[in-house]
């Protein structure tokens, strides 16, 4: 699955500006970026929920996508158990649905009302639902939201295990700019355009984080060192790195990042 020069405009503002990226079969990729960077918008375009205003999305034919949304908000007036919620995706026998729930560590919740789950439990149930239908690609919007650093590592370890077991690709969106999934092949830093891409370093090898968390098990996490040649202003506009005000023209040859731009 790939985006080619995707542009999105909403209400006269450019949310995504000629974003290109790709996820290859079996690959783990992450999109990271601050709030308002257009991460969720990019996902929506990739999933076919939104039509891009420019560019296009390429998908392998018959690509089975398992999608895990950021939030699940269901009115308490709707009586719905976790079991029933999963069966809405695929009518599998109870023991198979239970196996999927146990795989993500929440088998005991199968008969609970879905509205009674905590944030972390809800995300695990959503992950179990995304795994139904044996997807080729898992797309996860903030899978570790509201979880502490250790919990975040646990989620990433689990996702990495699932990826190895099933051979599916994983695309994760996260607002955490520094901790990423260990084993991720590609990290894309997004802020309306692709700021930089690269490979993460293992956290365990990173002295600064070892010093911060000497006794904490940080399996599953890696640290991503950004290497930008620009900064963003308050409204997301691109400025050259040396901090010159934006009206000092010519500081950057192409502040909008053309293909020839070097990172």
């Amino acid at each position: 699955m790939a985006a080619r020069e995707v542009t999105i405009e909403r209400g006269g503002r450019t949310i995504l500006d000629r974003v290109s990226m790709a996820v290859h079969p079996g690959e783990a990729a992450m999109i990271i970026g601050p709030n308002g960077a257009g991460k969720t918008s990019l996902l929506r375009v990739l999933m076919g929920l939104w039509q891009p205003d420019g560019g296009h999305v390429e998908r392998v034919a018959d690509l089975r996508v398992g999608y895990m949304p950021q939030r699940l908000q269901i009115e308490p007036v709707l009586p719905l158990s976790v079991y029933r919620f999963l069966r809405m995706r695929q009518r599998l026998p109870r023991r198979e649905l239970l196996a999927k729930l146990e795989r993500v560590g929440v088998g005991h919740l199968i008969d609970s009302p879905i509205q009674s789950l905590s944030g972390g439990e809800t995300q695990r149930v959503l992950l179990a639902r995304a795994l139904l239908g044996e997807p080729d690609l898992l797309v996860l919007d903030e899978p570790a939201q509201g979880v502490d650093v250790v919990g975040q590592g646990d989620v990433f370890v689990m996702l990495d295990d699932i990826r190895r077991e099933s051979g599916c690709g994983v695309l994760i969106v996260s607002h955490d700019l520094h901790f990423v999934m260990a084993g991720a092949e590609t990290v894309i830093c997004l802020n309306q355009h692709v700021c930089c891409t690269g490979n993460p370093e293992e956290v365990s090898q990173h002295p600064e984080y070892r010093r911060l968390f000497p006794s904490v098990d940080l399996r599953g996490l890696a640290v991503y060192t950004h290497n930008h040649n620009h900064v963003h202003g308050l409204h997301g506009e691109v400025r050259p790195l040396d901090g010159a005000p934006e009206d000092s023209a010519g500081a950057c040859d192409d502040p909008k990042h053309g293909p020839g731009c070097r990172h």
Partner: protein
Amino acid sequence: MDIAGWLDDFLVRAVLAGLMVAVVAGPLGAFVVWRRMAYFGDTVSHSALLGVALGFLLGLNLNLMVTLVCIAIAVLLVILQRYQELGSDTLLGILAHSALSLGIVAVAFVEGLRVDLMAYLFGDILAVGRDDLLAIALGGLIALVLLIALWRPLLALTVHEELARVEGVRALPVRLGMMLLIALVIAAAMQVVGVLLITALMIIPAATSRRFARTPEQMAILAGVLGMLAVGAGIAGSFQWDTPTGPSIVVAALLGFILVQLLPARLLPRFGTR
């Protein structure tokens, strides 16, 4: 038994009409409650009177015109809610009351027509004729088939719209189907409880059944059953104490709701109470 003769009894026709409407209004009401569309339903049903006036003006079947006008208002609402700068509740408030007023004004303009306005506002179930009964049965049947056909995709969209769309549910036809359903039920329910009270017939039985239900299906079916009970009790009460029938049905439904809220939690299924 002589069914044709049996149908001559106005009370039999009234009960039949009420039961047929309740069977569909209950399950549809469950969706109205789950999707927080109560005020939406109110707005659309208040526009039904406009359909009546148009039907008289154009000399067309009233049920058909009410259905068409309700669909038109529902679609207009969905479009306006997307492109509006006013809050959703403001928009619904404007449309609900202006649709009602427009309907009443339009009815007054139809020359030579003497309409019993109260009958349209609060229902006139005891005046249901054989033709009306047939129209209600037909509309109710179409609505029931449509509801069963749309059940799974509609539930999926209600739970999580984006997830459902990624998993292959086509949102637009399902949403239009829901509009058609609401319009059909309003057209059928208008004679039973009147345009002002249709939403009550949909949401009160659904809200009552919540405390007993463990699954969406249980809640919907129970809402249908409770609606039928309310219709039966309402007509009986209206006959007994000579009260207006439509409001009596709604009062019966309300009494059921209050009674169920007073039930101690231990008498209810554990799951449903949380």
